[in-house]
């Protein structure tokens, strides 16, 4: 009863946040440090109870020097993340512009277009991979049927088993599943641009390209950068698309960091080695995370000022 209101508030806040704190501690903080500890041991899935012996930096040295390291790094950074995210942003922007165009309103298709966008967005990634594996299938797939029918190819292509087509095929799955979110978010941002701004620029003699470049694009920039960073983080970490589309194959051709971690731990049973790769991945992610907080913080400031 002698507590000041401020102190009472602190106590109430503490109790309200305690469950969340415990959850974060048990499932994020503790496992992160435990993972770090594991990465310095040679623990395997077969001797979980005894634990492993300390091996210092041996796991890190082995991974960074392994012949597959460069391939995995290129696959993760360039193919999985860069190609998917840049195409996602470009296509998302084009879709948003299309959905916002007077043309769609004139043919009364705006609502329909939004519903169309919802279909891939609502599709769980596991199902998205199945849908495209079905389309890409060499014996049943409609894409092969169509290509054979038009005479563009004479033999069916196993898109997900062929070295030249496998990455573009995986990219297609990711883009199909993830672009709608980008498009809808950009559309929401487009609709906040005041009409007068565009009209004023038109009266001043701006071409449509100039109008897009100097009026629309600056308005979209904050949303685009947030979406870009979120997509980079989500795609870089993603395990499902590559694993379910190709199982990191053919061979290990499409192996990425996430699938490498899983394979080392649950196929090779080398938890310690796998954990070291996880730490390498976490360090890369932390850099992107810091960038995200800076950018989203900046956006918040702009919201308050503007």
């Amino acid at each position, binding site marked *: 009863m002698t507590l000041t209101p401020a102190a009472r508030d602190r106590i109430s*806040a503490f109790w309200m946040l305690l469950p969340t704190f415990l959850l*974060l501690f048990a*499932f994020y903080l503790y496992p992160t440090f435990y993972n770090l500890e594991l990465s310095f041991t040679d623990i395997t899935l077969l001797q*979980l109870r005894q634990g492993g012996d300390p091996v210092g930096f041996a796991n890190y040295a082995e991974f960074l020097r392994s012949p597959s390291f460069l391939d995995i790094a290129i696959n993760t950074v360039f193919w999985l993340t860069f190609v998917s995210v840049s195409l996602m942003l470009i296509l998302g922007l084009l879709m948003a512009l*299309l959905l916002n165009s007077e043309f769609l309103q004139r043919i009364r298709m705006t609502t329909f277009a939004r519903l169309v966008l919802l279909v*891939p967005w609502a599709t769980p990634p596991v199902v998205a991979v199945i849908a495209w594996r079905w389309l890409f299938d060499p014996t049943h797939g409609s894409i092969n049927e169509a290509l054979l029918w038009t005479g563009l190819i004479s033999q069916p292509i196993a898109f997900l088993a062929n070295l030249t087509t496998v990455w573009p095929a995986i990219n297609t799955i990711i883009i199909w599943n993830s672009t709608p979110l980008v498009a809808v978010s950009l559309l929401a941002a487009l609709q906040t641009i005041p009409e007068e701004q565009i009209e004023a620029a038109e009266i001043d003699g701006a071409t449509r390209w100039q109008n897009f470049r100097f009026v629309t694009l600056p308005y979209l920039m904050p949303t685009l950068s947030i979406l870009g960073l979120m997509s980079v983080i989500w795609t870089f970490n993603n395990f499902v698309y590559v694993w379910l589309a190709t199982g990191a194959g053919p061979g290990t051709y499409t192996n990425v960091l996430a699938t490498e971690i899983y394979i080392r731990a649950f196929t090779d049973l080398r938890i310690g080695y796998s954990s070291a790769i996880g730490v390498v991945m976490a360090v890369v992610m932390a850099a992107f995370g810091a960038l995200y907080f800076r950018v989203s913080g900046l956006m918040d400031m702009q919201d308050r000022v503007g």
Partner: protein
Amino acid sequence: MSGIAERRGLAGLVESGGLLLAFALFVIFLLAPAVFVFKGSVENISVSLVASGGGLTLDNYAGILEDGYFHYVFNSLYICVAATGLACMIGLLAAYGLSRYRFPGRAFLFGAIMGGQFFPWIILVNPIFIVFARAGLINSHIGLILCYTAFITPFTIYLLTGYLATIPRSLDEAALMDGASRLQVIVLVIVPTMWPGLVAAATFGFLQSWSEYLLALALITDDGLKTIPLGLYQYFGDVQIDWGAVMAGSVVATLPTLLLFLPLQRKLVAGLTSGAVK
């Protein structure tokens, strides 16, 4: 872009044609996979040859019903509902605490919770697997429910703090003046007021856990305990794929998410890109 309507003649025609083509490609690209999955689910797909023209059939659905696919559906439903319920309760308390009190470390805590959204779960799989193995939580729904609760709580808190910011504090204060406790305020004032926000957050949490694959893969090996994402990939054999069953199973897995998404999409967009909470 304005000005299209005023453009007439050949240029206008070419432009309309271009936009129409773009729109057609947009619709085909986004809809075709879903259409073909649905089509495959109601057709007889012979295992070795091109789809035979056997007309429409519900055999694939009957087949997965016999296989016990609905066991996976039931497992998924109950795990996701439990995790969502827990996440909403925990998240609501936390969101209320964050939005209604000022205390040291508040910004840091909020930042840490937001960080959870972007945390790569792939690197948590090893430590969680070991801890769960030692605690006997492998092949346990309770273990998976706890993981999913932890997995969806950060975004739940993020969405709920956003909604709470729109509820005037005077509403809580009036109830407090009348002698209600903080918990009573939350249950009797806040929950009824922010019901739509709570439904949105719950729906999102449900969808997130509904399609989760990695943790289920690592933690569940017992067939009777598997969830839909694992169950679907049962049909991918080493030699051949039971496409009919996979297609029917996919439709069953996607229908609930599609129905839940419909009323939710606008809210999600606002929640995702509005930046940090005020």
